[in-house]
């Protein structure tokens, strides 16, 4: 396959796995179900320690979606740095209602709240698609 070819979408072959980090239970459930309805597998974490615990299991992941403002010592930006130290190739998108241009530098993308589900899905498709592309062109990449 060349890099120009379209990789399979959710449901065709590899199902992308997304780690969603969000401290609001209703937002987390709604967002996760939106993604599951599109065929993605979603792991849910309430905060940074939970996200790092899931990552520490070695569970395969294609994308991390994280809220920026979270309770506890680590916010979304600190979590992004911690994840990048563990899995440098794992794409991360930050979500926040407080747009800070500086935040875009620590993750691959930034989504501003409130957002339409269609915008979320577009962003995920773009990031997961890019990941598939990287993996396929370099199958030994983790």
């Amino acid at each position, binding site marked *: 396959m060349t890099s120009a070819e379209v990789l399979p979408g959710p449901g065709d072959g590899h199902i992308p796995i997304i780690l969603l980090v969000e401290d609001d239970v209703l937002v987390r459930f709604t967002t996760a*179900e939106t993604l599951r309805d599109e065929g993605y597998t979603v792991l849910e974490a309430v905060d940074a320690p*939970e996200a790092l615990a899931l990552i520490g*299991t*070695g569970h395969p992941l294609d994308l991390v979606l994280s809220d920026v403002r979270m309770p506890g010592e680590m916010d979304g930006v600190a979590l992004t740095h911690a994840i990048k130290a563990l899995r440098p190739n794992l794409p991360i998108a930050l979500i926040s209602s407080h747009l800070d241009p500086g935040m875009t530098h620590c993750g691959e993308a930034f989504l501003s709240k409130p957002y339409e589900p269609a915008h979320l899905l577009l962003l995920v498709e773009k990031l997961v698609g890019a990941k598939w592309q990287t993996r396929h062109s370099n199958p030994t990449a983790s």
Partner: protein
Amino acid sequence: MADQAQQSDCILIIDGDVLVRHALADYLRNCGYIVIEASSTDEAKIVLNEDSLAVDAILADAEAPGSLNAFEFRAWALRRRPATEMALAGSFEAAAHKAADLCEDGPHLGRPYDPQSVISYIRRMVGNARSASIGLAS
């Protein structure tokens, strides 16, 4: 969201351990349920106070964190949602077996796999996570 939840049976899982919660939720989703994950009784109260969310059953860790302990939460939940069944599990092994029973009773696909597989999966995840945290600390 609300319409979708009302179309399928929905289970609310309450467990403060993300590895256990994830494994149980994954198992229940594989047998056809919509699953809401709550990390504490406080999150579970938010869910049950949301009238648009139909919750058919609750599976809670007996030691779930929160401002209400699991037994106090059960009493509160029975008042808030009298028709909702609730099971308390004292260990993740017991929770896995209760999840399997829910699958057995559910209208969907039956047990996706043996509950012992869930227990083994949780043990593997916990072991891996511990190794990773030791590696990070050293």
